[in-house]
């Protein structure tokens, strides 16, 4: 293809056009997938959030900002005064709080676990990883019910604590935020361990030894050598845990006893019994935008640091 002259012949231009066209054609399946499978449904949700709710579920095609208004503000149903939507804010706050706690706890448990696996002999690692993936074989709902069986008032945890004489009456863990937290940490732990392990496996342990040679304490080696090197794994794991936690639906419903909703349950309520699809759509988009904003903010900060 390379010719000594720099001028392009007309044949060559045609050939290049063909190549460009071929690139586009080859990209087409991916583009179609992006437009129709990813953005399409999202755009429908976005459009629905600006419509009026139909009387019995569904939407009426007339423009309205009521859905978005109700996400943040609340027109009191009794005296029509407008105030911040206290109920929604409480639910958002609970979701954010539980998701951050879940991320921190999975990190605290996942980090040593991943380190342990990464420091095993190469031939053993795959078995440890295999053990980590075993919970994925079982359906999420069944795993959640298993946790419920453990923390019930007459469950394994309470009955063993009572037979050991550590507590006199059963601890009411089930149907509290603590129960939701335990459930989410259990369910999302593998999502933290796997990316952390991937990062630690690449860690050059000679650097750790070098740190010790230079009289660094164990904590200093951890803080100044290991953590900076596995940071991408920590970030990936945190994102993988935080985002699904924020939208968790099954765990709060089963373990939280339904008394205190999370965002996922609130959205479901609007599409189901609440018969207010626009509000449900606005809440969904609101959640999405919040997560995106947090991610963009984080990435910007990261780049600025470098």
């Amino acid at each position, binding site marked *: 293809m390379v010719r000594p002259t720099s001028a392009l012949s007309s044949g060559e231009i045609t050939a290049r056009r063909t190549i460009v066209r071929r690139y586009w054609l080859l990209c087409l399946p991916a583009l179609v997938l992006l437009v129709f499978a990813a953005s399409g449904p999202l755009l429908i949700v976005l459009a629905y959030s600006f419509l009026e709710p139909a009387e019995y579920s569904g939407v009426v095609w007339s423009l309205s900002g009521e859905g978005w208004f109700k996400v943040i503000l609340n027109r009191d149903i009794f005296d029509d005064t407008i105030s911040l939507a206290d109920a*929604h804010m409480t639910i958002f706050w609970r979701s954010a709080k539980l998701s951050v706690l879940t991320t921190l706890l999975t990190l605290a448990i996942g980090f040593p676990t991943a380190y342990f696996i990464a420091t095993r002999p190469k031939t053993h690692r795959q078995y440890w990883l295999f053990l980590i993936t075993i919970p994925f074989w079982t359906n999420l709902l069944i795993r959640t019910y298993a946790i419920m069986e453990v923390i019930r008032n*007459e469950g394994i945890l309470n009955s063993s604590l009572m037979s050991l004489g550590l507590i006199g009456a059963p601890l009411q863990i089930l*149907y509290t935020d603590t129960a939701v937290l335990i459930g989410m940490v259990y369910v999302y732990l593998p999502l933290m361990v796997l990316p952390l392990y991937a990062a630690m496996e690449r860690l050059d342990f000679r650097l750790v030894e070098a740190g010790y040679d230079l009289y660094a304490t164990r904590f200093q080696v951890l803080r100044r050598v290991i953590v900076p090197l596995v940071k991408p794994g920590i970030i990936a794991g945190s994102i993988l845990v935080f985002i699904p936690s924020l939208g968790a639906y099954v765990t709060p419903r089963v373990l939280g006893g339904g008394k205190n*909703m999370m965002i996922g349950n609130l959205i479901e309520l609007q599409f189901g019994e609440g018969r207010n699809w626009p509000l449900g759509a606005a809440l969904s988009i609101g959640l999405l935008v919040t997560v995106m904003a947090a991610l963009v903010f984080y990435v910007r900060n990261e780049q600025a640091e470098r």
Partner: protein
Amino acid sequence: MTWKFTSAVAGVALLASAGGAAAEGELNIYNWGNYTNPDLIKKFEEAHGVKVTVTDYDSNSTALTKVKAGGHGFDIVVPSANYVPIFVKEGLLLEARPDQMSNFKNVDPKWVDVPWDPGRHYTVPWQWGTTGVAVNTEAYKGDVNTSAIFMNPPEELVGKVNVVPEMADVLALAIMYEGGRPCTEDKALLKKVRDSLMAAKPKWMSMDYGMTDKMSNGDVMASVNWNGSTFRVRANNPTVVYGYPKEGYPIWMDSVAILKDANNVENAKLFMNFIMEPENAALISAFARYANGISGSEAFMPEEMKTAPEIVVPAEFKAAGTFLPTCPKAAQDLYTAIWTELRK
């Protein structure tokens, strides 16, 4: 290119054959979970040589949303009384005229001219029941025939009460407890309802389903619950009783209807007529433990159901029962707002 063409042809042929197979001898029922007696289905399959598939849903709104979206492939749906008019209004039901079917004479006259389907042009009775309170008398020995069990729990039950998260049922009980009628839009009254619900919530343990198990094994001591479920609890745990709130309690009925876009209309009609036969209606009740609306079915029912206080409403509590109507959108919006605040 040849292999692409061949596989495309094969694909089309496969689709065509799948489409053709649906035409003969099938019936697809869309019903509440844990609600359809497998023996009833088996009997129908053997009697008419039809292959029946049952799919579950967990709430009226789920059923409505899915049916409305189309492409579901179901022939029969079993909505509650307050949802039947919505299905009709949205043009989702076939006017199957069960009132002209041969077994219609068996329908108890009190279930014929019902407000949600006058003269039964669309639906036939499946099961009916009440929503009340189930109480474990080991924990509380006082009067159980009151909504105060959950609206203002007695000392012994604080922290041990569950409320099933069924918005329509719970709000109806709460509204009647405060002296209103279901579907009311009276704001002064609704404010009272909200305030007392908010005050009662800290005394509840949970808002969850599955009371048949949780009350049987003693995890929950009292709950807003349905009569048939409580009957099943009592079979496992005899200290549990069912209370009919004297302030008023909802009565509901689920009815069988044929969908307008059903593929197997004739089989669906056969099924409608089939379940109006007293012996078959008794099979429905023997499984889910609710009464049906077919006269003469009692003779075929299990002995313990004929006298059960959960099934046979005692005369003194009959008057307090009221049918849940379909609430207008304005009332629905108020209720959703209260419900969201309650569960925040």
